[in-house]
């Protein structure tokens, strides 16, 4: 292990460590904020609370990216994403991993999750739980398609880091519309709302 940390001796190495330590500190601070919100906010399952939590987790993730990348560069959790080194994949040669069996297994998994989603429609669960389950299953399906069908599992980690966090971040930023839709709904005069106030849609 000690040979990997020889960079500590020169200034550049120290700079990197200080910057990463600051980033790590921020990430921990945001995680603590999120957890304290969970502990002391009272009712967590409100849209405001969930939004604040997601913002804290996202900021923690953003600050974690650099230290994690640095750690990866220095040999920690090597090959966590199944990415090979230069020697494994010479640039000129077309490489393609995965066998027919693997792709068939992925296809069967996707089909099974789809069937589960359809069956779920028959269960009389509350709308929130239903929505959470459906979105969760769909995220799993999307990840399976991206990892194996779109070949992202075998691409470099740098490509994954360029594409996915930005996408997730932008999608999460769109959640800012939901408090407004809630407000919009409650603004409506009650005589128009009649009996449908708490109706499940």
């Amino acid at each position, binding site marked *: 292990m000690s040979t990997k940390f020889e960079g500590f001796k020169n200034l550049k190495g120290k700079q990197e460590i200080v910057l990463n330590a600051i980033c790590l500190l921020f990430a921990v601070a945001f995680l603590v904020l999120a957890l304290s919100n969970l502990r002391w906010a009272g009712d967590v399952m409100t849209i405001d609370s969930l939004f604040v939590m997601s913002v804290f987790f996202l900021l923690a993730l953003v600050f974690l990216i650099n230290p994690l990348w640095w750690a990866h*560069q220095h040999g920690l959790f090597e090959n966590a994403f199944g990415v090979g080194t230069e020697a494994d994949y010479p640039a000129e040669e077309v490489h393609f991993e995965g066998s027919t069996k693997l792709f068939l297994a992925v296809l069967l998994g996707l089909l099974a999750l789809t069937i589960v989603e359809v069956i779920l429609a028959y269960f009389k669960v509350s709308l929130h739980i239903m929505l959470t389950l459906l979105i969760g299953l769909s995220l799993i399906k999307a990840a399976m398609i991206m990892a194996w069908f779109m*070949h992202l599992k075998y691409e470099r980690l740098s*490509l994954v880091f360029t594409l996915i966090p930005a996408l997730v971040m932008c999608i999460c930023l769109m959640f800012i519309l939901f408090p407004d839709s809630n407000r919009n709904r409650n603004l409506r005069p009650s005589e128009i709302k009649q009996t449908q106030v708490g109706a499940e849609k």
Partner: protein
Amino acid sequence: MATEVHTDHLIADEWSGGALPYRVGHKKLGMWLFIVSDALTFTAMLMAYSYARYTSDEWATPFAFSPSILFSTTMTLCLLASSFTMVMAVRASAHRNKRAARRWIGATMLGGLLFLGLHIYEWGHLIEEGLRPFSLPGEWVERWPQASPLFGASFFAITGLHMFHVFTGVAYLGMVAARIRRRTHEDVEICGLYWHFVDLVWMFVFPLIYIMSFDPAPPQHAKAAAGFVITHLFR
């Protein structure tokens, strides 16, 4: 020209030019960036639909199992199967078997066309029933008196945009397959990426539009049919 590539380089070396930091070609990177931006377009549409649905007092849930859910599930199976054939096409192309790649792409296009046919049939069914972008059929209004008329707008806009993507994808695949001998492996891979993305979007459209609007209490004739089957089965 022949520069030695070090395996244990730092970020600065890798990003200072002269290297391929992502180790994908510029075309493929371009397709990935397009996919990310297109994913955001679809997310915005789905968010607008969720906003409209959450903010209105009632939302029509008209999709009974018999035509709608059955159709959309079959469409999902079509898309998933075509995604599988696409990945097999890319695999054949990686093994320099262009003829097999063309055949697999043909199968993928068939899946896409089947999807399109089923989808257009289903649209026709809904339009016949009286669904319009900004008004609901009379029957639905009777059943869900407070329902927002935006159902049609969100349904037609989201599934229409997706249908347009499927159509474009079939045309794109056809263009790649027609002159596959002149295409590189990367070209086949890129059109595969696009096709998988179309599949991926449907994985969110299907549960949010169809399953979330599942009709828990089927209309009288369906109930009667189910009762008929049950009584004759367990007589």
